[in-house]
């Protein structure tokens, strides 16, 4: 008899992981909302609206990084177009936010301001249902998911992989950016969506709303981590890792890599879309520059900095790089591109396993044991592609997953 799903999810994350998640939940669900919305502004522990927005934004980025890690770290597929899915989710939710402005815009029209400005008389058909909150929630996941599914189906079916796939995803997001820059596309062109007023009738700038959005982002991140951990430790995750390390062998055993890759790819896009939807109300703007190739490739570097194939590493990486970014862009804006550029180079050259890998190495050294126990939150199968080349362990593990449907 198989173990029930809940139990399996529970077991997939080790105890230390659950403790860490509980602490994280306490901070993001109680401490931060209280510090922002309950404590008076003069209070020394009060968190400013700016800080909460910044942290909320970084939480959304962390979700994206986890989604990226799932597809890059565990399936070996480097996407340089994840910014597209993030932006699609953001745009889907932005449409709802635009409709919620109602007649409070500068033209006092039922239509969003930019449409009045373009002299449009009615909403285009694809805006239908954008005033319903539930419909929007559906779209936020469905739009990126469908785009990713269609694209992935074609790409994986013809076994496009490696750098080919990366560059094509980059071209995809670039083309989408050009499309969204056009006014005629109907998403606000250059300026995108901004000037949001309310969600479900509640003001978007109130401290309560901000704290709620922040807590929701944290909840999404935790859900992603738990789900991700479950997936990568499951039978499915083992097959996926096997595909990453030796696709041909897996195929010869009788699995069809298409299904595995496509599922993880689509899930990753949906997670990005959800993150985008939470990102837009916290930042207050969405425009096509979110789809620029540079943004997407930055996501990859968050994961690389943290350490691929570790999930926790992705979260750490997104946090480290983005905090560094907000510090740099405030203090030395002109040096940020240098820093980011050298970060790309240094991490790939000297830290192939990222911060988590460094941590593991540092822990292993004092112990001086050749077979040091892995860090609890990191699964031992979670190795980057490079280190996994011609690995002798995988065939030994494969029989365990033989029952899985191909």
């Amino acid at each position: 008899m198989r173990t029930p799903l809940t139990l399996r999810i529970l077991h997939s994350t080790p105890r230390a992981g659950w403790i860490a998640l509980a602490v994280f939940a306490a901070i993001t669900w109680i401490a931060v909302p209280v510090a922002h919305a309950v404590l008076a502004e003069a209070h020394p522990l009060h968190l400013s609206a700016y800080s909460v927005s910044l942290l909320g934004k970084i939480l959304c980025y962390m979700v994206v990084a986890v989604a990226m890690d799932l597809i890059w770290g565990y399936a070996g597929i480097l996407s340089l177009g994840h910014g597209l899915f993030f932006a699609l989710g953001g745009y889907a939710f932005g449409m709802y936010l635009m409709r919620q402005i109602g007649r409070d815009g500068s033209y006092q029209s039922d239509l969003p301001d930019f449409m009045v400005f373009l002299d449009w008389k009615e909403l285009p058909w694809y805006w239908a249902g954008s005033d319903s909150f539930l419909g929007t929630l559906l779209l936020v996941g469905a739009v990126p998911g469908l785009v990713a599914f269609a694209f992935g189906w074609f790409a994986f079916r013809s076994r496009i992989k490696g750098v080919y796939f990366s560059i094509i995803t980059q071209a995809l997001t670039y083309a989408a950016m050009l499309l969204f820059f056009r006014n005629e596309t109907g998403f606000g062109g250059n300026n995108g969506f901004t000037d949001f007023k309310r969600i479900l009738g509640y003001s978007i700038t109130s401290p309560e709303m901000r704290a709620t959005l922040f807590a929701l982002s944290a909840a999404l991140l935790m859900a992603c981590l738990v789900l991700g951990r479950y997936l990568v430790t499951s039978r499915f995750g083992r097959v996926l890792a096997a595909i990453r390390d030796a696709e041909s062998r897996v195929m010869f055993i009788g699995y069809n890599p298409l299904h595995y890759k496509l599922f993880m790819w689509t899930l990753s896009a949906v997670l990005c879309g959800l993150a985008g939807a939470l990102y837009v109300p916290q930042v207050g703007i969405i425009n096509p520059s979110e789809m620029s190739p540079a943004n997407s490739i930055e996501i990859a570097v968050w994961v690389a900095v943290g350490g691929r194939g570790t999930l926790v590493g992705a979260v750490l990486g997104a946090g480290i790089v983005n905090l560094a970014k907000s510090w740099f862009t405030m203090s030395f804006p002109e040096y940020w591109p240098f820093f980011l550029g050298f970060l790309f180079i240094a991490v790939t050259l000297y830290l192939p396993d990222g911060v988590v890998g460094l941590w593991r190495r540092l822990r292993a050294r004092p112990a001086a044991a050749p077979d040091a126990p892995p860090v609890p939150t990191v699964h031992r199968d979670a190795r980057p592609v490079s280190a996994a080349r011609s690995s002798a362990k995988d065939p030994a593990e494969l029989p365990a997953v033989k029952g899985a449907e191909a």
Partner: protein
Amino acid sequence: MRLPLPRLLCACALVLAFLVAPARAALDEASLAGLAGDFQSRLDTIEALGVAGGEDARRVLDALEAGALGVAGGRAVIVQGESVVAAANGEALALAASAVETLTVNNRVRRALGTARAALALASADRGERLAAARTLADNAGQSLLPLFERALANEADDEIRGVLARAAARVNLSSADPAQRLKAARALGESSDPAVKALLAALLEKQGDVWVEPNGEVRAAADMAIHAIDRRIATAETVGTLFSGLSLGSILLLAALGLAITYGVMGVINMAHGELLMVGAYATFLVQGLFRSYLPAYVDWYVAAAIPAAFLAAALVGVAMERLVLRHLYGRPLESLLATWGLSLVLIQGARVVFGPQNVELANPAWMSGGIELAAGVVLPWNRIVIVGFAVFVLLLIWLMMQKTRLGMFVRAVTQNRAMAGCVGVPTARVDTLAFAIGSGVAGLGGLALSQIANVGPAMGSGYIVDAFMVVVLGGVGQLAGAVWAALGLGIVAKFLEGWAGAVIAKILVLVFIIVFIQKRPQGIFALKGRFADS
């Protein structure tokens, strides 16, 4: 048909007199009488002077322009300092300069003067002057110029000038009272490719109330035919123009992709900083231009030629540095190489921004690269693009010779096909990597040089090209020069035709979709390598 001989002879003599007369005869007093008349007759006289031609006419016109032409006692005279001479033959008159009423030169007089001067210039020995004069006259021709056109046509040997003159005459004849003349004119205008002529003919085919503007049905039919002929000609010229811009875009893509094809083929690494190598080449060109302006201003037009080795070397050096310092250590990890080279591109862009400033730098086309060949009104093939197409062919030839005829080229091909086996038989793969990277980067630098002649040169100029260049490499098939050529030209031309049809953005998206679909069908590119090495 019988013509009375005497009348024919008379006509011949008249024409002959007309043709020969202006060359030698002095002006007679009567032809200048109009100058003493009212304003309109003055304008007519000035134009007629130009039509008549000759040295004396030129002298009178010069005087008019200088404000020295005047009227005294019903005679046209020219004031020369204190003395006054007759305008017609230059003989001195016993008149005080103060008694002469000089003609004022206002805008209308100036226009008439311009026409007259152009009419004079039609007899010039210089082809360019005649062509310019013919074009000026064609724009504002009236009935009075018809004899001039006919005379000039009889003497003109150059086909282009003849064409301009014939069309100008036809245009005038279109408003002639004689239907036969109008018919001839409508047929002659069918030779044109000018939208303005088309509009002129179309006006004949309109109805005012129930009455045709052009009463004669035959003329209308001829005008209709002429309009269709013009339309066809304009459409052809536009197609050729689009084909050419596709070709020129294809050449740029080819220059960008050739280098990438080499580096990707040899090392299996996508150099995301490849676009920045274009930028390095363009800035090297900019520096060479600066050197020429400071030290060799006389030869500044040839800075582009001197920039060829400079752009190649600058980009090649940067490329070698990248290969030695970064890519070499990432061998066998293509995805990480992608990220590292992206980091390099960020550093290079920001470096250029710090050194040269964030604004675009100004690069001038040398004189021999500006201008172009005009196919039809509004369809011009610019020289700078023509030169770039030629340059791309030249670079392609060099690369082909290098790859096929030299030892290094053989090594590069060997490493591209099977690195391990090449290494086994003694090819120094590490050195081949470095050299191939240097050459590939150098070619990108040459691409930057070409790009600097048609596009803005700024820190981020190259970033848009990496994806396009990679698409060319993918389409063409890795390690295939011929494939890269076909793919670059095909992509360039398809993109330009789509652009004309659906706009630039949609064109870009369609091309992308096309490539994705294409890779479905032929994952190895147009020219797939056959054999065991194809499956990697």
